């Protein structure tokens, strides 16, 4: 029998930590994307299935700007700053894209049946991925990390600078978002709008503006995840589909509509996928089944998600 099948019984503590770090990197990325799904669901009670494609478009724009900027023999810190600039550019583009899509494709359908905006979102996602294939080509591209990506070694663990950057950026943004939503005036208005839009508007909240802000933030976070993901994998017109779907699962696992839940669900899913392939010996080709298996389990056992509350819908 294949030796990896029994790797479960040979595992040592260093290997566990190694997988944990790998899982945390992937999980942070899922979590950032999941936040967009969950925030939009919180306010509009619908899943923005174009979220993954917004991520893809923003990542392309980041890549294009980055490739333009780095021509000429730039080195070191300059490259890193240009990388951050390119990332911010992609975030801005996708924030704008998210807001425009909401106004064009979802806003006119707010009073329609709940299925209508969902179908519209699927339509938007098809338009975006096909436009990307048409304009950017179907060939996948590399987003090369500008600095040395040689792994650090300590206590037998190997961590690449990209992994460190990913973990740092993901956690920094998650904490930032948590602070924004919990403590700021606009964050409070977001929570109020997600509980009751009419009453929020009675308080003087322009709910449309809050919805736009929600789409902008969700899309910008997704592109950050997209760029970090692209550093490890590739940029392609279909990159948003599977990552988006996984992040959606993460949001459902954590409890859709719940911001802490999306973070938890994302990280949990990343770790489960990593351990599933590395420790349980699930073949890499079947890696995606882990996420969907988890989805089926959570829907059977706790359909509201781990942190979800069972709030009865008003009729």
């Amino acid at each position, binding site marked *: 029998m294949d030796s990896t099948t029994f790797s479960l019984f040979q595992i040592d503590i260093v290997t566990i930590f190694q997988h944990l770090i790998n899982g945390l990197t992937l999980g942070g990325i899922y979590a950032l994307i999941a936040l967009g799904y969950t925030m939009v669901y919180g306010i509009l009670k619908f899943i923005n299935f174009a979220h993954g494609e917004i991520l893809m478009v923003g990542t392309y724009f980041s890549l294009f700007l980055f490739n333009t900027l780095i021509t000429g023999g730039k080195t070191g810190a300059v490259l890193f700053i240009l990388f951050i600039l390119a990332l911010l550019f992609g975030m801005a583009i996708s924030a704008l894209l998210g807001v425009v899509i909401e106004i064009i494709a979802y806003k006119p359908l707010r009073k329609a049946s709940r299925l209508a905006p969902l179908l519209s979102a699927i339509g938007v996602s098809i338009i975006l991925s096909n436009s990307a294939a048409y304009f950017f080509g179907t060939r996948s591209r590399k987003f090369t990390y500008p600095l040395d990506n040689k792994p650090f070694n300590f206590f037998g663990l190997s961590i690449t600078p990209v992994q460190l950057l990913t973990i740092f950026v993901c956690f920094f943004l998650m904490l930032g978002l948590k602070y924004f939503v919990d403590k700021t*005036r606009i964050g*409070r*208005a977001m*929570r*109020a709008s997600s*509980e*009751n839009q*009419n*009453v*929020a*508007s*009675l*308080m*003087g*909240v*322009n*709910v449309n503006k809050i919805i736009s802000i929600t789409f902008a933030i969700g899309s910008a976070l997704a592109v950050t995840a997209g760029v970090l993901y692209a550093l490890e994998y590739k940029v392609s017109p279909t990159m948003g589909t599977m990552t988006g779907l996984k992040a959606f699962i993460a949001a459902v696992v954590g409890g859709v509509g719940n911001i802490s839940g999306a973070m938890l669900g994302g990280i949990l899913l990343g770790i489960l996928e990593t351990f599933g392939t590395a420790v349980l010996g699930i073949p890499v080709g079947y890696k995606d089944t882990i996420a969907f298996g988890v989805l089926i389990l959570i829907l059977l056992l706790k359909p509201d998600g781990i942190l979800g509350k069972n709030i009865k819908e008003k009729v």
Partner: protein
Amino acid sequence: MNNILEIKNIHVQYGNIKALNSVSLTVQKGDIVSLIGANGAGKSSLLKAVSGLEPITQGTIEYNNQIINSYQSSKRLRPDIISSMGIALVPEGRGVFSQMTVLENLEMGAFLVRDKAIISKKLLEIYAMFPILKDRKDQKSGSLSGGEQQMLAIGRALMSSPEVLLLDEPGLGLAPLIIKGIFEVIRSINDEYKTTIFIVEQNAKLALKNSNKGFVMETGVIVLSDLSANLIENPQVKAAYLGE
């Protein structure tokens, strides 16, 4: 004449059902006005129309001689704009943000107030008015009792220092003693801040006792309007609404 609110011939329609049929009424500055009527008479629709939550199909609503809601969609103001002009609605069923704390709910009431000093001053006033809210300020408002939620909803509306306070069924589902306390507070708000108050209430006796003027609504039409003191003595009102 100092009309703060002028409702002219308004109609509100839900599909084929007419909720309001050519309703006209004026409210004068500083008054406490009550609108009584049976369940489903259209009282809540009227308040929703005034606060901008419900579009009207005919007529206009003017606040301080400015149109805030109209049959013409171009002249309709959004609820958040109407709120910023000084009209606050305490909605039916209180509408507290149950996942947010009591303090956060009150802060939401002052969403458009940018001056932190004014917010703190208002908070102290609300806490003085409803001491229980201070004790519960860090509690999720969903965990409050019905009476406490009503106090919170009123306190939240007052955070913006409104000129007009609209109250939709403030006594609904509450114990008589608590309702009495709430109406006392409503009168003191009118006394202290000179806030114009418009109460919609099924409990006709209580509403008329605590207001200067009253209107009686039946199936979307205003059938009587008089001083509240006269309405209480009106045999028609007595028979239909006061159970005498």
